[in-house]
Every structure is written in C-alpha cells, then in structure tokens.
C-alpha cells in the first residue's frame, strides 16, 4: 500500500508552500480584490511561470517540465491554500488539459509552449446562462471556421488570450479554439462574488475559430476535460479548507471569552472537529482522484465526481464555520475569512455545481454496476 505522495512530490509541496507564503497570500489576493481594474496579479503570474508550474504537466517536447499530474495536484493544493489571484486553473487545468487531450500536433506545438512559458492565458467557456448547461441548451454556433454566440460567465475570460469554447457544430457539438484578441470578440467584465479572479461575458460575431478535437465530439471531450479539472480543483478546495481550519483553530486558541479560550468550549471544538472530518473525507477522495488521473485509470470519472462532491461540501463548511468561529471580526472586510468564503463559492460552482457532480457520481455508479 502506497497511497500517498512521494517524498519528491512532498518536497515540491513544501517548496510551493514556502514560495507562496512569501510571494502570495492575503496581501497579494487583496491587491486584486481591492482594485476593480486588475483581474489578476501579474507579478505572481510571472513568478509562477518562472518556476515552471504552468508547464508542470506539459511534456518536455512541448516546453513543459514533463512531470506528472500528481505534481500538479500538490501545486493545486498550495495555490488553493493561498487563494492565489491568478488564472492558473483556467490556463492549466482547463485550457492546457483540453489541448493535450483533444488537440492536433499542430495545435499542441503552437499553444503548449506558450502556456508553459507564461505567454498565454487560457480559459474554458461552457456556461451560457442560469442553470447547468446541457447538450440541448448550447446556443453558441461554429460554422465554417466562424464562431457566433455568447458565453457567460467565463472565469478569467477578461484576461485570457485564448479560449476553448463548447459550440453547436452542424448536428452535433464541438470544442472550438478561439483567439480572443480579434475584432469578432467583445468582452464585458462582470462583477462576481469572487473579485480576486476575473470574469467576463464573451460575445462572438463571426469570430475566427478552429475545431479542437473531432467534430461532434465536443460534449464528450468537455466531460473528459471537466473530469481532469475536477480532481485538480478538488485539491485547490482541500487546500482552501485546510487553511480555514488552521485559521479558525489558531483564532480559537488565542481568543478569550468568559475568561477562557473559546477553543476550550465544546461548541467550538465540535465545530472544528466536523471541519477536520470533512477535510479528511475530501482529501482521501481527492487522493483517489489524483491516482486515477495520474494513471489514466478507468475509475477516473467516478473518482473525479467523488473528489469534487466531497471537496465542494468541505470547503463550504470550512469557509462558513471559519467566519462563525471568528465571531463579529469574521464578518469584517479586514479579516481574511471572506477571501476563502468567496473563493469557496467560485470553486464550487465553476465547472459544475455540487449537485451536478453528485448527480454524475450516482450516474457513474449506475454505469459501473451495469458494466
């Protein structure tokens, strides 16, 4: 039994923690929060690119470090812990994964080295309005190399240079690749619950685009990309949850009420123990997702759904109970609790809300038993 990360992966994690403690954290996240004009921290982005993290899982032949998905998982946990205000997930878990999964050699050669070098910010656009998208609800249209329609919201869509879009294509649905810096694309910045990440509405009027992967395979490809991203997002969520638990525990030890540490009250202890249990459940499921992702196991769809369902619920619990443990101070702008509370909601709803993943999990249990 070796159900853990290797010593090398753990030391990568330690290095990432050290680096992010120094260069990221609440101060950096707040720079983006407090300035509506910027959608990510450019310095942190540059540093992260310099460390090679953007290309961690990209093969060396395409300019990456050629490490595995397990390395990406440990980085994801640390980025989640730091509430990093950079378009890392959009570029790496969604855009680069989509290109690696479905792209032609030409597309890979053109795009992946730029991702690895930090020269390309990517995003992934699925949603077109309220509610979970279905194959029937997709209205964006790809026809003869031209894309029309609108996507809202697109996480990091305001700063990205390229997008992978799900669009109708003749009788079916395809993934298409779009350069966002062209005349046929209009971006409108959106106000969201989590201003530490940029969001936009993207409108396309005969924008020049190309297919990513086979025609008519878009929905299946998107599901496959989502499964991969789900595991990585789950690690960000576990990292964020763990940070909330540590923050709440620390506060409960230092804060006195009724002349004693509030952490000595069982009402607080049991709250924090519940957070701990939720994190352990989420972490264990996420590890299984990591294993399935890194070995391209047939269990990936099941493991990804379980990872995501567990991690979304854990982060919600930990983020709200961290505020509660802090009492009135937790409700202020100046205390960092709300940074996690905001990010918890973004991570819970982007790429499918908790109920969507729970439904997928049960469907996949049904499929597994039918097989």
């Amino acid at each position, binding site marked *: 039994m*070796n159900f853990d990360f290797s010593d090398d992966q753990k030391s990568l994690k330690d290095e990432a923690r050290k680096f992010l403690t120094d260069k990221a954290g609440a101060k950096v996240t707040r720079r983006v929060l407090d300035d509506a004009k910027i959608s990510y921290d450019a310095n942190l982005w540059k540093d992260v690119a310099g460390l090679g993290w953007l290309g961690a899982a990209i093969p060396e032949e395409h300019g990456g470090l050629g490490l595995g998905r397990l390395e990406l998982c440990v980085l994801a946990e640390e980025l989640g812990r730091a509430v990093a205000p950079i378009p890392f997930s959009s570029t790496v878990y969604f855009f680069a994964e989509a290109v690696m999964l479905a792209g032609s050699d030409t597309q890979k050669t053109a795009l992946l080295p730029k991702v690895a070098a930090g020269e390309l910010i990517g995003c992934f656009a699925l949603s077109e309005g309220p509610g979970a998208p279905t194959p029937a609800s997709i209205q964006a249209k790809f026809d003869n190399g031209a894309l029309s329609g609108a996507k809202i919201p697109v996480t990091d869509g305001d700063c990205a240079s390229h997008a992978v879009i799900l669009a109708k294509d003749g009788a079916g649905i395809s993934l298409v690749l779009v350069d966002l810096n062209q005349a046929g694309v209009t971006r409108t910045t959106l106000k969201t619950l989590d201003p530490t990440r940029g969001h936009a509405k993207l409108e396309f009027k005969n924008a020049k685009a190309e297919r990513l992967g086979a025609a008519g395979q878009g929905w299946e490809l998107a599901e496959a990309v989502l499964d991969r991203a789900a595991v990585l997002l789950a690690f960000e969520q576990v990292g964020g949850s763990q940070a909330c638990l540590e923050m709440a525990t620390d506060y409960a030890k230092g804060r006195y009420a009724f002349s004693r540490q509030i952490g000595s009250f069982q009402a607080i202890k049991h709250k924090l123990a519940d957070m701990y249990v939720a994190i352990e459940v989420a972490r264990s499921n996420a590890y299984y997702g990591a294993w399935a992702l890194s070995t391209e196991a047939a269990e990936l769809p099941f493991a990804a759904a379980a990872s995501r369902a567990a991690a979304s619920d854990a982060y919600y619990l930990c983020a709200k109970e961290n505020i509660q443990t802090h009492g009135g101070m937790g409700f202020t702008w100046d205390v960092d609790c709300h940074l996690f509370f905001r990010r918890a909601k973004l991570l819970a709803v982007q790429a499918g809300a908790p109920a969507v993943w729970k439904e997928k999990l049960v469907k996949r249990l049904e499929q597994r038993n039918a097989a």
Partner: protein
Amino acid sequence: MDFNDTPEEAKFRAEARAFLEANCKPKAAENDRMNRSLNPAEYMKAAKAYQKKKAEAGFAGITWAKEQGGRGLPPIFAVIFNQEEAKFDAPAGVFAIGLGMCVPTVIAFSDEATKDRYVAKALRGEEIWCQLFSEPGAGSDVAASKTKAVRDGDDWIVNGQKVWTTGAHFSDFGILLVRTNPDVEKHKGLTMFIVDMKAKGVEARPIHQMSGGRDFNEVYFTDVRIPDANRLGDPGQGWGVALVTLMNERLAVGGSYGPDYKEIFEFAKTVNAPNGEGALIKDEAFRMKLADWIVRAEGYKLAKFRTMTALSKGQTPGPESSIGKVINANQMMDIGNTAIEALDHYGIINDAEYAPLEGAFHQSYMFAPGLRIAGGTDEILKNILAERVLGLPQDVRVDKGVAFKDLPTGR
C-alpha cells in the same frame, strides 16, 4: 502512488490467505453479514479451536514481541491479516478485546511470572478476557469510577458495579479499574487489577438492549477478593494504566456495520419514488443523499488506505483514526432511516419474512444509536480530535484539586 503491497507484505498476505483457506469458509458475498447459525456453546468451541490454530500458525499476536509468543512484526502485517480474515467467516470476535486491549496492558505492567501465567493461554484462545472500565456513573468520564477496593492483608476486597462489559459472561479474566483512595483527586485514586471472572462474588448479568439483543453485561462485585499480586501498576496509578489500554483501542481498525450505500442503491431500484413516478433511484433528492453516502464511505475506506500507507512506512497512526466511528455510526443511522421511510407505511414491518434484506435496514436503525455511544460517544471522539489533533485546550475542569469523595455526583 499505488495500492500494491511491498514484496514482503505480498508474501505475508499469501501466507495469511493460505492459512485462512485451509481453516475457514469464505464469506458468501463481500458484504455478507450473516448471523451466526451455531448456538453459543458450539460457536465458543469453534472460536477456541480456530484461535489455537491461529496461534500455532503464527497469526495470533502478529505485532507482539517474540518473547510473548508473538511474531514481532510491524502493525501493517496485523492490518493485512485482518483484511484477509474479514473475507472469511472466521470466529475471531470473542478474542478481540482481550488480545487487542487487555493482554497488551498485562504485558506492559506485569512481572515475568504474571506474564507466564496469562499471556500464552490468552494467545492460544484457552482463556478469554474482558475489560471492566465503564460504570453507571462513569461513562464518558470513566475516571469517575467508584467501584472500590480496600486492602486486606495480601488481598484487596472489591465492591461495586461495572457496566457495558462485552463478553463478561464467557470471560475467564478481566482487567478492572477501581477506586482505592477516595481522599485524593479522581485521577489519582484509581488502581488496575486482574480479576478472575469466576471468583466468588462476581456476577455478570446481560443487559437487554433497545435493539432487542443482549451483547453486553453489567457486572456486580460483592466482597470479591483479589490478591495484591494481581495488581497492574502501583496503587493510585490506575489511570495511567487505563490510558495504555485505551490507546490500544485505537489500533483496532473499525469496519462498517450494516447495509451501506451499495445495498441501499440496489434497494432503491425496487421501491417507488415519493412522487409515484418510477423507482426511488430516479428521485433526485434520494440521489443527492446517495452521493453523500458514497463520498463518505469511500472517503473512510481511502482514509484507512492512507493509515495503512503510514503503517507500511513504519509510522504510527495518531488519534485521527477516531474519524471512522463518527462517520460510520451516523451513516448507518441515516441509511437505515432513509430505507425505512422509503417503504412508506410498510416500513414499520421489521419481520425478516417481509422486510427487505431480511430486516437489515431496521437492524441498523435500532443498533446505530448504540454505535454512536459505544467506544467513545460522538461528542467524546470529537473532543479527542479537537484536543489531540488540532491542539485545542482542555475544557475547564471543575474537579481539579477536589478529593474524589467531595465531587458532586447528581444522578
């Protein structure tokens, strides 16, 4: 990252399987939770015979030192044997408390003569042990035990009552926590003894549980004489001895009980959804709950794999294994309850002839309340997680500096 044994572990697992195949029947199904078809006397005979073979083959006391008749292997090997044994219908349960908790305590606190007397016989299944800690007035707060022992020459004379003692009626010996000095603080006036369960004045009475079964006992002590030679640790040091026993409890890896998500998933194909449109498995509210159960059951199973990984690397798992019972007991309650309600009015029937899975969901419903309490209540386990894992301060103690005899007792 993988789920494979090391070569050494794989070799041991194969040995264990060969032993089990030669001596036990495999379970009919992975989730087989059959009731014992043997009567208690036959079952006990079979259990003792099995334990003897286990000891002779070197699968009893896997982690114990060689001089105690053990094999001196790291804990991962005991976990591997338990995993394999769980796949068979092996009658190992009656020895779990004795070999898992009592005898290790005897080994830790006895002289050579005492160890020679008890350890080997316990390992071979010739003598069975029970643990006598809880009392009617000392449950979560077990250090409040008031069963008392008074010195009389070379003996101690014990009077009082213990409760929730598993297997007291068929045990040969027990480890007994008693009050020897009521004039000092409660943790400082306790002493631990080995007690002969067949001695004059020891009476075990089964407790009739709300679930109908009689799995535990209350044990009365009336002028029971225990030789001073049976004392474990110094007088007044009983709490420290008890902590060693309770620490060993943690290493006993708990399994799940009763039907889990796989069973209720199959069941949900067979009953109507509340809106009458198709089967329950199509009902979205049910599917959301099912997803939560999958996540927790798999999460617990995978967390155990992480513990095994730590053991495999020679690390010691800490109190974090307390999460298991908190998850499982509540999940068992919830699944039993959901299945019963899904049956609508019919759900009130627990007659095995009519009820699904021969009433297994109903058994969960009636047994889960006990599981949330046994072996540390949910609340105590959460305190343990909060204090020992997260490092939160202890609750304010109102009994500090107060002699035991002066503490308020209430009901």
